[in-house]
């Protein structure tokens, strides 16, 4: 399968034809892959397991790139090839344009220290170190002086809500706490790229949301690039700039959350996103419909009346020449104005229109929309009217009907 | 170590070898005697000491010293190959601490006379000379298998063997007999010769080499039937004292063994234990 490779100045990680086959008869397996055999067929024939099959993708600086897929589809393997914890069978990984496979020991070590931090699926904490020492591990490896690294590690522990546990040992902690130690260890490192393998899987909803916010902050403030494996669709949609979906070692689709949701590449992806909570993903812009408007600076009551009749509606939005929202017109008022022979709309415009911004998540709108019978007007930062929100469209979007994309 | 200088006849010996006599197993009779000698000759007061080690370590040290013509004083005894292989001489023992000579006794277990009278008789008759034993020792030392060397000896000395077996009738049914011995070359020789003779008489003989203590203990506890390697009165004095009530001493099988302090012959000025004090 071919995926577009965007190559521009902002590219942080570029992956080309990355392949990993586990087991013994690797050459034979590679041959079979080329001939289009599937992973189970190859496993049966050679005993070799296809971990990742010729993956191509690009991750930009400062984005959160989420990898999803069935268990065993090659997510961890892909991630671990990014820092060469697993030696690829074939293909390239370029970080900032450098092919890490071609690096000597020293360079790859430097890259691992400064550019790449990792959170492990299985935590991988050192059992004979305290929580604090575990969190400071990456810094210690970098040779940072003890006081400094411990104060940094302490801050990282604060970040993940584990202050007070610094002197305990991993086996005295609950699963989720252990996971957060692993998280703190990665965060303390302050690397440019964070590789996170199901880093939040053992967290409760509250901690999870906090950690997600933390990631978003990191991305925004520090411009970190984050590669994140998750099984939680809502999480992926919430934090991901791009989402990559894998199946049996292959990439099935890469796209923005909206693209994935509204244009799933195939049945697999469609099934995959079935249970998703769309209210967390979609914004007002996604569900708004075109508003019928009149220009207060040019149009008069007669035009307004005709437009209402043509569109079989009883109200009309009023904008000015800059398309700024002015208010709303009532059919009765328009009729009265015409009867009174008025030429201007100004007197009859009602300005108490409920408005919302383009990027307000649907979840935040639900309450308002459910209690207000007037449609909400969707405006941008300069108060220009872009559309309106009606209940049917909201429900439709939540039900998975098509929505506006790239608005 | 090997960095030490060669023997200098013109200087006192003591400083040259650090006032040390190289000994063998700490518990051996010769060691007890040497300890006594150090006192009797007043050597102990002059910082002389006895370094215990083992027979092998002592002979090894000796070999090395002789190769480098360095001075050395060791505890020595004969018959032993060290006296055939190396140019050694015993130091005179005017105060007779080591005794004139040693004798080698045959010791059997209690009840052997009743159980195996024929074997008992052979063992009782067994007697030979340092010269005879040396021929077997030499053969073994030159690489011959001890059993074969013994067979050769028995073949060549048929007359003497006939004396040992005088009045002894052939036994039937291959009764078992166990001899134990100390793995010194003299004892290897004598035990193999006796075993060969006993085999001719019809016994199924097992011989087992071991340390002196188990040799005595085995005969005392009847785990073995006999041994022909009891150096007395000095060398095995302690063991003899311990076990004499549990074993039967058949008397001397060889005379003329000797123990004492020995030095290489090139140490011309050292001829008596008294000379060590110089």
């Amino acid at each position, binding site marked *: 399968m071919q995926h577009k490779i965007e190559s521009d100045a902002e590219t942080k990680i570029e992956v080309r034809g990355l392949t990993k086959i586990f087991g013994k008869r690797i050459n034979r397996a590679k041959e079979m892959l080329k001939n289009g055999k599937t992973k189970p067929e190859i496993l049966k024939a050679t005993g070799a397991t296809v971990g990742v099959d010729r993956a191509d993708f690009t991750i930009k600086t400062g984005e959160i790139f989420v990898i999803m897929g069935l268990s065993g589809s090659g997510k961890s393997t892909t991630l671990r090839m990014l*820092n060469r*914890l697993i030696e690829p069978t074939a293909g390239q990984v370029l970080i900032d344009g450098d092919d890490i496979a071609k690096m000597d020991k020293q360079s790859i*070590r*430097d*890259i*691992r*220290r*400064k550019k*790449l*931090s*990792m959170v*492990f699926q*299985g935590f*991988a*904490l*050192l*059992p*004979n*170190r305290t929580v604090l020492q575990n969190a400071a*591990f*990456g810094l*210690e*490896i*970098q040779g940072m002086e003890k006081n400094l690294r411990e104060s940094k590690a302490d801050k990282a522990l604060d970040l993940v809500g584990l202050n007070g546990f610094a002197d305990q*040992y991993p086996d005295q902690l609950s699963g989720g706490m252990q996971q957060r130690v692993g998280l703190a*260890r990665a965060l303390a*490192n302050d690397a440019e790229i964070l*590789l996170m393998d199901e880093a939040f899987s053992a967290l409760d909803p509250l901690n999870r949301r906090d950690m997600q916010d933390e990631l978003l902050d990191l991305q925004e403030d520090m411009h970190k690039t984050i590669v994140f494996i998750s099984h939680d669709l809502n999480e992926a949609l919430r934090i991901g700039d791009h989402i990559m979906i894998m199946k049996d070692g292959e990439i099935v689709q890469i796209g923005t959350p909206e693209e994935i949701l509204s244009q799933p590449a195939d049945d697999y992806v469609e099934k995959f996103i079935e249970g998703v909570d769309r209210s967390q993903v979609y914004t007002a812009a996604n569900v708004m419909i075109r508003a019928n408007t009149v220009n207060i600076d040019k149009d008069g009551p007669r035009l307004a009346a005709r437009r209402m009749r043509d569109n079989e509606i009883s109200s009309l939005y009023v904008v000015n020449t800059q398309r700024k929202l002015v208010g709303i017109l009532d059919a009765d008022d328009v009729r009265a104005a015409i009867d009174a022979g008025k030429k201007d709309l100004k007197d009859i415009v009602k300005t108490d229109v409920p408005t919302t911004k383009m990027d307000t998540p649907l979840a935040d709108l639900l309450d308002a929309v459910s209690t207000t019978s007037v449609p909400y007007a969707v405006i941008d930062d300069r108060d220009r009217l872009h559309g309106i929100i009606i209940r049917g469209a909201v429900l439709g979007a939540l039900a998975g009907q098509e929505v506006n994309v790239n608005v | *170590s*090997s*960095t030490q200088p060669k023997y200098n006849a013109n200087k006192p010996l003591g400083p040259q070898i650090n006032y040390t006599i*190289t000994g063998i*197993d*700490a*518990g*051996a009779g010769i*060691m007890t005697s040497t300890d006594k000698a150090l006192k009797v000759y007043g050597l102990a007061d002059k910082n002389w000491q006895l*370094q*215990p*080690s*083992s027979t*092998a*370590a002592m002979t*090894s*040290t000796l070999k*090395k010293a002789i190769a480098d013509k360095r001075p050395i004083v060791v505890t020595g005894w004969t018959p032993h190959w060290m006296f055939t292989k190396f140019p050694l001489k015993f130091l005179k023992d005017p105060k007779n601490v080591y005794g004139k000579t040693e004798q080698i006794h045959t010791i059997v277990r209690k009840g052997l006379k009743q159980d195996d009278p024929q074997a008992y008789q052979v063992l009782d008759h067994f007697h030979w000379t340092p010269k005879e034993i040396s021929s077997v020792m030499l053969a073994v030392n030159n690489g011959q298998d001890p059993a074969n060397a013994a067979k050769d000896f028995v073949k060549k000395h048929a007359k003497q063997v006939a004396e040992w077996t005088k009045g002894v009738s052939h036994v039937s049914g291959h009764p078992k007999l166990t001899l134990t011995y100390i793995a010194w070359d003299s004892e290897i020789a004598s035990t193999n010769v006796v075993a060969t003779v006993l085999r001719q008489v019809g016994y199924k003989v097992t011989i087992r080499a071991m*340390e*002196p*203590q188990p040799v*005595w*203990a085995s005969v005392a506890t009847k785990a073995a039937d006999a041994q022909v390697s009891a150096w007395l009165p000095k060398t095995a004095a*302690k*063991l003899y004292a*311990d076990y004499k009530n549990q074993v039967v001493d058949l008397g001397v099988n060889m005379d003329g063994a000797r123990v004492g302090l020995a030095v290489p012959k090139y140490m011309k000025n050292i001829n008596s234990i008294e000379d060590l004090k110089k």
Partner: protein
Amino acid sequence: MFNLFMNIPTLPLAHWIDSFVAWLTQFSGFFGVLTNFIGSIVNAFQAVFDLIPIWLFIVLIMALTWYLKRDQKYRGLLIFELLGLLLIWNLGFWRDMTQTLTLVLTASLLAIVIGIPLGIWAAESKTVSAIVKPLMDFMQTMPAFVYLIPAVAFFGIGMVPGVVASVIFAMPPTVRMTQLGIDQVPADLNEAAIAFGATSWQQLIKVQLPFARGTIMAGINQSMMLALSMVVIASMIGAMGLGTKVYFAVGRNDAGGGFVAGLAIVILAIILDRITQSLNRTR
């Protein structure tokens, strides 16, 4: 084919070896240096032990024990140490005990200093492992008697060849257990170290050795025990100490006396064992 083989004359291996040993004597300079080196360690230990009064020695041992075991039960061990050491004193074996201790500590020290790196190296390289394993088998099973005698030519008689023989015999458990311990480090911990950019050295020091500690300590402990088990053999080439006492008693056919001297060795063994084991338990 086998009949054919039987006609091959016995290989003159023994002769070759004798020549090899003779050839080795030309390196007497090197052996001299080694002898002096080991000798100076021995002397240093012995000087310290000779300096410390007996009561202070006992107090120091007990204090060390208490310090190492402070979060565990230690009363039984303290009482054992007190009684055991007093017994050794009472039996008149004090000096012998310190001599044996010197021998064992020197040998263990060398076994650890050589053995741990060797074990690490073997854990890291299959080639090294393929060489080290049979070498360890060799060192443990080639009877000490065999090399002790030629060793006299190189190291003389006394403590030094005793130490050499003890090191040869006692080192293998440390090497093997170090290798085993490092092999047993879970893959994900190694990966964590690598992912954070650890050098091989850091990975070793910060992850593998701490994790393998228990197993390595078991190896060191075994090495110490084996070094102690060598003291009688060491005494055969003149190393002084409790071994000599045993050897002497055995020579005199004095089972009781031998046992008493042996008991002093055992007491020393138990104290050393407990102290090394409690080194292990503090995390």
